[in-house]
C-alpha cells in the first residue's frame, strides 16, 4: 500500500504538537506556543530521513519490513529534533540555566573567541568524522562499486534485506559472544595476574613492566605470532599437545575451535593494558581497610571479594567500555592473520570483519556501508547502557 507523504507529515506534526504541548503544560508554559513548536519540530524531524529517501519506504511495491523501517526512521528523526527542543524549553520554563555553570570562572563573554578557539577542532571533526559519516549514510542507500559506471538507488534494501538473512544474523550473534568472551576472560585473567603481580616480591617492577609488553605489539604482529604457534600442522602448540595428550586441535581450521584461537590471541593482546590499570587500581585500595577486615577475621578471599573488587569497580567499568570497543573494532587484524578470509565456515567473521570483507574485498560499498551503520548503532547503544548502569555502581562504590 502507498501511504501519502502529506499524511505522514501531518501525523508527525500532530504527534510532535501533542508531545511538546504536554511538556509545556507540565512546566506551566504556553500550551499553544508549545503546540506550534512541537508541530514544527515533528514536521522537520520526520523529513530528516524522508527527504533524502524521497519517502521511498512507503511506495506501493515495498514490503512490510520497509514500511516498518521507514516508520522507525521517522520516529528517530522526530526524536533527534524534538528531544533537545523539549529539553531546552523545559529548562528555560523551570528557570534553570541551559549550561550547568560551575561558578563564574572560565566563561567567555563574547562569541568570537570561543569560536576561533574551536575552529580547528570543528574543522577536523567536519572533514574526518561528520562528512564521512554522512557519506556512509548516503552510500547505504545505494548499490555502488568503486570504478563502476553508475550508482543505483535502492532505498533501504541494504538494511531491510538483512531481516531474513540468516548468515548475517549468525554474524551478529557470533560477534556478541566472541566480544563478550574477550571482555570477560580478559578482565578476569588480568585481575588475577595483576593481583599476583602486586604482591610485594623481589624485582616486582621488572616483572610488572614485562607483563605490559604485549600491549605494545601491533595486532598484526600478534596475529602472526599466534599463527605460527597455533598452526594446525606445523605449530608448536599442536606439537606439544600431541606429545602430551596424543591429540591435536584444528586451531585455525576447525570451525568450533577457530573462534577460541581468536579469543585467546585477543585476550593476550589486551591483557597488558588491563593489568596496567588494575595494578594502578590496586595501589589505591586503602590498606587500613584491608587490615581492619583482617583483624575482624576476614580471610583472603573474603577481603578480595568484599573489599578489593568493589574498590576496583570504577576501573572495571572503564575497562569494560574500552575492552568492548577493542573487541568490536580492533580485532580485525588478529582475525585476518589467524584465519584469513574469516575462518572455516565463517566461524571468525565478526561484524567488523564482514564490513571490510564486503566493502574492500567484494567492492560492494552500499551493503558494507549499511552494515557499518548497524555496527555503529550497536556500539553506541551498548555504551549508553553501560554508562547508565556502570555510572551508578561506580558512584556508590567510591
Amino acid at each position, binding site marked *: 500500500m502507498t501511504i501519502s507523504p502529506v499524511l505522514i507529515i501531518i501525523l508527525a506534526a500532530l504527534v510532535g504538537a501533542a508531545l511538546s504541548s504536554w511538556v509545556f503544560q507540565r512546566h506551566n508554559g504556553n500550551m499553544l506556543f508549545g503546540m506550534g513548536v512541537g508541530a514544527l519540530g515533528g514536521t522537520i524531524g520526520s523529513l530528516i530521513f524522508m527527504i533524502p529517501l524521497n519517502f521511498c519506504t512507503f511506495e506501493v511495491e515495498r514490503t512490510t519490513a520497509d514500511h516498518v523501517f521507514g516508520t522507525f526512521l521517522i520516529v528517530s528523526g522526530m526524536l533527534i529534533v524534538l528531544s533537545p527542543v523539549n529539553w531546552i524549553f523545559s529548562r528555560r520554563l523551570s528557570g534553570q540555566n541551559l549550561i550547568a555553570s560551575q561558578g563564574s570562572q572560565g566563561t567567555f563573554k563574547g562569541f568570537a573567541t570561543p569560536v576561533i578557539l574551536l575552529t580547528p577542532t570543528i574543522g577536523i571533526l567536519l572533514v574526518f568524522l561528520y562528512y564521512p559519516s554522512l557519506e556512509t549514510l548516503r552510500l547505504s542507500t545505494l*548499490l*555502488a*562499486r*568503486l*570504478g*563502476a*559506471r*553508475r*550508482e*543505483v538507488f535502492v532505498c533501504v534494501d541494504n538494511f531491510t534485506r538483512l531481516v531474513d538473512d540468516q548468515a548475517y544474523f549468525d554474524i551478529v550473534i557470533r560477534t556478541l559472544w566472541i566480544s563478550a568472551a574477550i571482555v570477560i576472560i580478559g578482565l578476569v585473567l588480568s585481575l588475577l595476574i595483576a593481583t599476583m603481580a602486586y604482591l610485594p616480591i623481589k624485582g616486582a617492577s621488572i616483572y610488572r613492566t614485562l607483563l605490559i609488553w604485549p600491549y605494545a605489539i601491533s595486532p598484526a604482529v600478534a596475529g602472526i605470532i599466534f599463527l605460527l604457534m597455533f*598452526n*594446525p*600442522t*606445523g605449530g608448536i602448540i599442536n606439537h606439544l599437545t600431541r606429545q602430551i595428550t596424543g591429540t591435536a586441535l*584444528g586451531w*585455525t*581450521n*576447525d*570451525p568450533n575451535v*577457530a573462534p577460541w584461537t581468536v579469543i585467546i590471541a585477543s585476550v593476550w593482546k589486551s591483557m597488558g593494558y588491563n593489568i596496567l590499570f588494575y595494578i594502578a587500581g590496586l595501589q589505591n585500595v586503602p590498606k587500613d581497610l584491608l587490615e581492619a577486615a583482617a583483624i575482624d577475621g576476614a580471610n583472603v578471599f573474603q577481603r578480595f571479594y568484599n573489599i578489593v573488587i568493589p574498590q576496583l569497580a570504577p576501573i572495571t567499568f572503564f575497562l569494560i567500555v574500552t575492552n568492548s570497543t577493542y573487541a568490536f573494532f580492533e580485532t580485525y587484524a588478529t582475525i585476518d592473520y589467524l*584465519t*584469513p*578470509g574469516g*575462518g*572455516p*565456515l*565463517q566461524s571468525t567473521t565478526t561484524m567488523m570483519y564482514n564490513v571490510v*570483507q564486503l566493502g*574492500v*574485498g*567484494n*567492492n*560492494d560499498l552500499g551493503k558494507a556501508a549499511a552494515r557499518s551503520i548497524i555496527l555503529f548503532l550497536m556500539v553506541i547503544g551498548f555504551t549508553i547502557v553501560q554508562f547508565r548502569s556502570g555510572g551508578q555502581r561506580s558512584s556508590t562504590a567510591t
Partner: protein
Amino acid sequence: MKQRNRLILVVAAMLLALSTVIPALAQDDAVEIPVWIAFSDYRLDWTVELAAEFNEMFPQYNVNIVGGYSYETVFAETQLAAEQGELPAVVQFFEAGTQDARDSGLFKSIASALAGREDVEGFPVALDDFIGPVAAYYTLDGEFTSMPWNTSSAIWFNNMSILNEAGIDTAPATWDEVAAACEAIMAMDGAPEYCFTFPNHGWFFEQWLAQQDALFANNGNGREERATEVVFNSEAGVAVLEWLDEMAAAGYLYYSGAQGGDSWATVDQAFQTQQVAMAAYSSSDTTFYTNMGVDNGFEVTASFLPYNDDTGWTGNLIGGATMWLTDGLAEDVETGALAFLLFLTDTANAASWHQVTGYMPIRTSAVDLLASEGWFETNPNQTVAADQLAQSTVTPATSGAIIGAFPSIRNVVTAAIDRVLLTDEDAQSILDAAAAEANIILEEYNLLNVE
C-alpha cells in the same frame, strides 16, 4: 656548552640530510613511470632490478615499481586510485580482473597504444611471438588488450620420496589414482599427516570444471557475449565438490581453512614440512617447489593436474596476470611504459622470468632460447605446465571465464568448498546456493556497469 654541541650536531645532521635531498631534486627531470605489481617477494626484487636496468639504459625514464600484497588487494587499491585520479601508468591485473578492467574504461589496449609501430625505443613489438593460449586469452574483441607477463596453469606437485616409499613410481593422473595413491601412502608406517592438499582458491575449482569441459558462466563463458549468469552448479561442478569432500572425509585431504589469496602460503608450509605428500598448486612456483625438495632432502616432481575419471580430460586453463596500460597518459609516459613492457617481456627476460619463477616462457623465441640452452632437459618440472596447455583442446570451457565481479564470485565459490568440507550438507544444494548468491553479485555488477 653541552647544549651548544648538541645544537651544532642537529644542524649538521640536517644539512647532511638536505645535501642528499637537493641533488636528487635537481637532477630529477626523468619521466616518472609508476608501475604497480602484485608481488612482494623475490618476484618483486626481480622486477625492481629489471626496472633499474631499464632506467640505466634510458636515463630519460624512471620506471618506479611498487609491490603489493596480493592480486586482490592491488585490484582494490587500483579502483580506489581511479576514484582519486591517481592511477599509475601500468597496473598488473590477474585474469579474474579482466572484465572489470575492460568495463572500467580506465585502460587502453596495447594494440591501439602501439598504433602499428614495429618497435618502441628499439624493442621489437612482435606480438605474434607470444604463445597461443596466452595471446588467445587476452585478445578481446579481436584486439590485443593487455600485455601478458606472468602466465601459469594449475599443476600437481609430488613428493616422490614419499610416493616411492609407498610403492608408487608414477604421479597420479586421475582422481581415482589420487585416491589409490593416498590409500597406499596413508597405510604405510611413518605416513605423513595427510596425503595431499590444495589452495582453496576459486581458480582450482575453475580448473577442475574446465577439465570436464564444463562452463563456469553462460554465453560461452562470457566470451561470446557478456556473461549474465553463472552455470557452475552443474553435474561437473558437483563432482568436484563431492570428490574433495570424499578425500577430506577419508582423511586424505588437508584443508587449512584459509581461502582465496591467503590459501597459497598454507599449502607451501604443508608441502615443505612434508605434512602432505602431494599438492595442487600453480605452476608459477615450480622453481620454488622444486628447490623445496632440494633444500629439504626430498624429490619433487610436477605432473598434470589430476582429472575426473568419469568425464575425462579436455584441457586446463591459464591463470596469472597481465599488465594494463592506463588510458590518457602523456605521450612520453606512454612511450616509456610501452618500452618497459616490451623490455619486460623480450626474449631474454621472458626466459629469465621463467627460470626464476616457473611462470611460462610466454614467447616462442624464449622457449627456443631455453631449449637451445638445454634448460628443459635438466629441469623436467618446468615443461609440465606448458605441455598441459599445449595438449589442451581449446573450447570455451578451457579458455576460462570472462565475467564481471569475478573476484567476489570466487569468494562465493571458495566459501561453498569450505562448506562442503566442513559440514554434512549435500554438495548439490551448497553449490546451488552459491550459484544463486553469485548470480545476485553478477546481476548487480552488470546493472552498474553495462552501457
